[in-house]
């Protein structure tokens, strides 16, 4: 008897009982269910929720693997064991087993905690509320480890995941009902609850915080500077990284958001498979460019000089904003979340544009919250239904006018 039949028997045995959703979920996760829809109107399509979610995860896997290598690379680079990457994307200094193992053992626990806690809560709620376990957490669970600093303590992540899944999703009725993107809710919770682990110049490189504490304890070591580009720009310092490094992702940052190249590939994959909305991605980039150009014009015309604390970020060329920080990752994987984004096509343009526009606005004007893209997407999540409402109403009005003209 193979596993599938065994699970099917278990499923039948527990049908109608309290634990039924849990067994159903395991069965449908591993296999295509045996049941077929009978009667009524139904659409035959190859993509269901499970496949949609898997496609997004596939798009994120390169970022995850790159993040593992990068965690080790940044660590050894900061410690001084290796030299900076000299060649292109395939530099041998970067893709070493040493680098990978450091990142692997740091990031794998993040993935396990994220999925473990999140799915446990999903199963719990499904059993209590007697609905089926939904696949919504599959993507969230993958996003979470990619958007946190590599050294985040695991218990903090667990608390944040529990908070995000319950308050961000389950109170609204589960997958598909949530107003805010659950992954970003989790990150926002971490950001405001434990700022010492989520921002500043020490958290982005593995080992920097430990090293700092060792120095404070009196050991004679050099401090590791894990400063991100946004951080040093905000202070008006010279950029320590070349454009190529920023684009390819050899820079400190959250686990999976550094490589704009791989995010771009993931984005193209999502567009090609028609899972992610190209309208949102494109308009968000447009919004960021417009805001960046406005700031560049302001500094170019001399309204703001380098005595201002905003000068550093404002004078950064507009295209640089697209490849530093979490902007690219947020635009491709978070803003396009079909549940929390606008649903109408026109609405998507407005929504995406404002996401990009506000990201750069927050990034520049509030150096305390350099990750403007997180706050911008959460803000626009709240406004998405309003945007849709007005888009639909405008269409209704237009058609009413046409109708009246016809009747008259």
């Amino acid at each position: 008897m193979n596993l599938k039949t065994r699970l099917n028997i278990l499923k039948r045995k527990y049908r109608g009982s309290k634990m039924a959703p849990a067994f159903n979920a395991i069965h449908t996760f591993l296999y295509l269910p045996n049941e077929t829809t009978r009667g009524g109107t139904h659409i035959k399509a190859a993509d269901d929720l499970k496949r949609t979610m898997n496609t997004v995860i596939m798009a994120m896997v390169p970022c995850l693997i790159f993040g593992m290598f990068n965690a080790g690379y940044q660590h050894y680079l900061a410690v001084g064991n290796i030299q900076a990457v000299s060649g292109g994307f395939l530099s041998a200094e970067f893709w070493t087993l040493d680098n990978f193992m450091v990142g692997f053992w740091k990031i794998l626990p993040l993935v396990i905690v994220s999925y473990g806690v999140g799915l446990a809560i999903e199963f719990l709620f499904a059993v209590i509320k007697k609905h089926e376990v939904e696949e919504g957490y599959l993507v969230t669970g993958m996003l979470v480890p990619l958007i946190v600093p590599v050294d985040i303590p695991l218990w903090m992540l667990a608390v944040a995941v529990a908070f995000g899944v319950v308050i961000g999703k389950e109170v609204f009725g589960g997958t598909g009902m949530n107003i805010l993107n659950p992954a970003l809710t989790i990150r926002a919770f971490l950001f405001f609850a434990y700022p010492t682990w989520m921002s500043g110049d020490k958290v982005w490189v593995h080992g920097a915080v430990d090293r700092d504490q060792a120095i404070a304890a009196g050991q004679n070591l050099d401090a590791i500077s894990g400063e991100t580009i946004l951080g040093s720009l905000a202070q008006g310092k010279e950029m320590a990284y070349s454009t190529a490094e920023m684009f390819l992702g050899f820079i400190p940052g959250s686990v999976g958001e550094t490589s704009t190249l791989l995010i771009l590939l993931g984005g193209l994959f999502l567009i090609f498979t028609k899972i992610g909305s190209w309208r949102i991605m494109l308009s968000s980039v447009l919004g960021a460019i417009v805001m960046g150009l406005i700031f560049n014009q302001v500094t170019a015309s001399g309204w703001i000089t380098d005595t201002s604390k905003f000068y550093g970020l404002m004078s950064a060329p507009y295209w640089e904003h697209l490849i530093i920080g979490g902007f690219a990752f947020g635009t491709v994987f978070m803003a396009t979340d079909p549940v929390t984004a606008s649903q109408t096509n026109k609405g998507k343009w407005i929504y995406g544009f404002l996401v990009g526009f506000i990201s750069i606005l927050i990034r520049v004007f509030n150096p305390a919250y350099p990750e403007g893209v997180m706050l911008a997407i959460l803000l626009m999540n709240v406004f998405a239904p309003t945007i849709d409402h007005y888009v639909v109403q405008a269409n209704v009005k237009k058609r009413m006018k046409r109708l009246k003209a016809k009747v008259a």
Partner: protein
Amino acid sequence: MGLLSKKDSKLILDPLADNNPITIQVLGICSALAITAELKASIVMAVSVLFVLGIGNVVISLMRNIIPSKIRIIVQLVVVAALVIIVDLVLKAFAYELSKTLSVFVGLIITNCIIMGRFEAFALGNGPWRSFLDGIGNAAGYGAILIVVGFFRELLGSGTLLGFKVLGDPIEKTGLYAIGYENNGFMLLSPMALIVVGIIIWVQRSRNKALIEDH
């Protein structure tokens, strides 16, 4: 309860649970969000409102037959304002530090919807004894939520209760902090107070079938 008739005791007990001014009527939220970062401030606020609403309800109830209905709001405001000023001065005289923490929110008790609401809805139409009970009951229902929210916010946000370091010292790294625990800074921000109140409402509504609205 020998002291109170069944109807009278309902006046006190109802607002504590099934008709709580904060969780069911969703009144008085502003102060519940603003001052609950510390348990001490929550308790003082709860006691202040208890005083103002208890006495205020009696005063309004005694005057209910001579207040012209066209200017009743002004009369109510004068009564609350007078009582709030008493509270404010007492706090300034005997607990100056605390009065600074509460700052403008003591003065804003005047605009607390619960107080005007009880004056309008109850004291204007009932005798002084029943109005007193109603006032005490509603203020206690308000205070109870404040104290619960204040308890969790101070415990999780600062690791203290009434100023005592119950979870250990975060700087010396004793107690829970020795194993890596850290205070949750989000708890000290007002949005988290709203979420805590929301969770209380959620738990209360899901446990009490009578409160579940069908859509």
